[in-house]
């Protein structure tokens, strides 16, 4: 006898869930464009697939990323995922050893203690019972932690967990009750038949001593089946959809499919893979400095999933990428937000018919200061001094006025308008015939790298300064000054340049460590990514960042971005300097005659020959 009426809720839920997932996944795969399909096909039939399987094991089951940042939270997620997975896997194996029938119904291993309360002995029966009890104990410990977290999340290092919708709460409650009810039902079974192992037997005898086991056992199995069925029914519409979608996301991402600039299939998968764990909320500086708690990816992606187009939520984001760096699922929500902004701002593009075409002199190194650098003349002056002294052939592209790089427009969702500026700048850069483009502004750097189609080397000035130092074109003296380095978002986290600025600083000063280095770098609040933010809010973010970085021990704050410099300078009581300023300060200047000779030689070589 392998059926009882109480398994119907479970079977209904499970079948619904499986059909839903199959239909949804098939739809997603079919909606990929030809190029993406080709990529996916190639990837699935290659050995790299094993990499994805490894990643799925590490992230979906073991939750390595959460473990790294928060061990307790990591254990909670791991115990639930791994424990439940073990229960399913070992339960099915146990049935294979136990029953000669190769095809057992899906409910049979789950309610095994009901169908076979007194089994004849089979190989490894004690071991199986032990492992099953151990897995149940692991899951229960996770569920217990989840209960505590719901009532006091600060114990888990989470100040502001996600405020869940009603559907999510229903699914959450069902999930909480699944494992205690399993323990209860199996415990009662053990109380009557003594068929458990260390956990179910002990708990069972305890239940049996205070409750009428014989009467309660059948309702207990019903309750277990009902709760399982409810959870499966609610899963596709709740945050738990991330369980089936995350493995798919990992495979798609590793196959090289991206969500560039539109809400494509990949973006849909990312939206569904968000577990609304709320780790992004505490990382967001709008939350920590300004108590804005409705715009973080957790809520933003939920809005998108329910087709709510709240424009304020889409706009109000610094685009600093701290949430992406912390996301345990690896969702690039900034890209999705950008796609949404472009969707909303596709009307009436800006017109720039007044822009002149700039034709710089032909040169090896082209220096593009950018709008923000023109606003901080000290950076411009330092760079001019250093470049002049190095004796290389260089030219100032935007000396008499900058055509913006286009990234501010892009961040505002004005893709079409940005294209006009990009084309203008591309034309003048190509006309210069230079091999290297150096910029002082990380915003421009990112734009040149990602939006422009230039086949020349693009460098931030910190990288270029390092090269000049290493090639001995300039030499620095090391001062006793102690400094703190601030990673600008666009340079560090969003472009991956962490080491070069630090190396340059190490040549000329003593660098102190902070708690917010590299990927964890803080946003200055001046970001051009956020449009509706008020001046007051910006200043609060800047003050908070200064406070967190603890610059009181240092003599100066060094940054690589003119915008960050200007924003911090308003609120910092210590001087804020750009890397180029620090280098210019510590430059060992050759004697005047030598400089004159060097300049003359350059002139004779024709590097400065101007047509």
């Amino acid at each position, binding site marked *: 006898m392998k059926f009882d009426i109480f398994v119907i809720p479970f079977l209904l839920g499970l079948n619904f869930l499986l059909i839903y997932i199959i239909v949804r996944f098939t739809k997603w795969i079919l909606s990929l464009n030809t190029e993406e399909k080709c990529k996916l096909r190639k990837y699935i039939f290659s050995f790299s697939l094993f990499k994805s399987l490894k990643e799925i094991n590490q992230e979906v089951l073991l939750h390595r990323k959460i473990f790294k940042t928060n061990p307790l939270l990591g254990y909670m997620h791991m115990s639930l995922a791994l424990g439940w997975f073990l229960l399913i896997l070992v339960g099915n194996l146990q049935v294979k050893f136990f029953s000669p029938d190769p095809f057992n119904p899906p409910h049979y291993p789950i309610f095994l203690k009901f169908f076979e309360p007194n089994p004849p002995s089979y190989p490894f029966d004690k071991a199986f019972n032990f492992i099953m009890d151990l897995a149940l104990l692991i899951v229960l410990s996770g569920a217990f932690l989840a209960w505590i977290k719901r009532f006091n999340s600060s114990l888990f290092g989470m100040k502001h967990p996600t405020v869940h919708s009603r559907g999510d709460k229903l699914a959450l409650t069902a999930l909480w009750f699944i494992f205690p009810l399993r323990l209860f039902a199996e415990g009662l079974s053990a109380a009557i038949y003594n068929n458990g192992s260390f956990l179910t037997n002990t708990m069972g005898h305890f239940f049996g001593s205070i409750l009428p086991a014989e009467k309660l056992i059948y309702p207990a199995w019903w309750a277990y089946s009902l709760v399982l069925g409810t959870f499966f029914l609610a899963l596709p519409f709740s945050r738990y959809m991330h369980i089936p979608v995350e493995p798919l996301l990992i495979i798609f991402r590793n196959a090289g499919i991206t969500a560039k600039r539109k809400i494509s299939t990949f973006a849909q998968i990312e939206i569904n893979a968000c577990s609304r764990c709320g780790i992004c909320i505490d990382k967001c500086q709008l939350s920590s400095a300004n108590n804005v708690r409705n715009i973080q990816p957790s809520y933003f992606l939920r809005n998108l999933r329910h087709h709510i187009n709240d424009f304020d939520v889409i706009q109000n984001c610094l685009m600093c990428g701290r949430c992406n760096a912390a996301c345990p699922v690896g969702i690039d929500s900034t890209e999705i937000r950008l796609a949404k902004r472009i969707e909303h701002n596709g009307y009436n593009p800006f017109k*720039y018919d007044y822009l*002149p075409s700039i034709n710089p002199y032909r040169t090896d190194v082209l220096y593009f200061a950018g709008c923000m650098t023109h606003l901080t003349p000290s950076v411009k002056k330092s760079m001019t001094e250093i470049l002049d002294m190095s004796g290389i052939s260089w030219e100032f592209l935007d000396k008499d006025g900058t055509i913006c790089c286009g990234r501010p427009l892009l961040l505002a969702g*004005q893709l079409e308008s940005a294209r006009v500026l990009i084309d203008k700048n591309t034309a003048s850069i190509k006309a210069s015939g230079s091999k290297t483009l150096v910029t002082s502004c990380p915003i421009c750097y990112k734009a040149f790298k990602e939006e422009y189609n230039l086949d020349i080397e693009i460098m931030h000035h910190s990288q270029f300064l390092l090269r000049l130092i290493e090639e001995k074109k300039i030499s620095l003296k090391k001062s006793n000054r102690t400094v703190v380095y601030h990673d600008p978002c666009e340079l560090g986290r969003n472009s991956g340049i962490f080491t070069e600025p630090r190396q340059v600083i190490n040549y000329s000063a003593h660098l102190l460590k902070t708690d917010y280095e590299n990927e964890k770098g803080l946003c200055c609040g001046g970001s051009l990514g956020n*449009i509706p933010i008020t*001046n*007051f809010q910006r200043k609060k973010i800047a003050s908070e960042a200064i406070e967190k970085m603890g610059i009181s021990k240092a003599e100066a704050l060094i940054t690589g971005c003119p915008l960050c410099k200007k924003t911090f300078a308003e609120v910092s009581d210590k001087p804020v300097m750009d890397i180029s300023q620090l280098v210019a300060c510590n430059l060992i200047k050759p004697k005047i005659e030598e400089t004159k000779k060097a300049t003359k030689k350059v002139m004779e070589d024709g590097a400065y020959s101007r047509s």
Partner: protein
Amino acid sequence: MPEWGYKININNQIDLDFNDKKYLQKLIESEPSVKSCFACGTCSGVCSAGNFTQLSLRKIIALVSRSEIQDLSKELSKCMLCGKCTLVCPRGVNTRNFILSARKLLNDIEIAK
């Protein structure tokens, strides 16, 4: 009638009372900080686009506050949104949001027509 060589000038005085203040009201709703502008002109001084053409945010704000919206769309479309004006504004006006909201509003008005 004899030709005197003179003619009567067309009246070019602007009667602000005839202007529709609704536009200004709506704009202040979407970006309240614009009320604190004291027309110092720093924004116009640093403007990247202002290097190449006649573009003055101070003028735009003056026009908006008088609800003179005839040429506004053309003026606004010159902006490159680089954000220098936001950074230098001594009154903390969120100029980028002002420009985008103004453009959106003008666009809505045109669609409504």
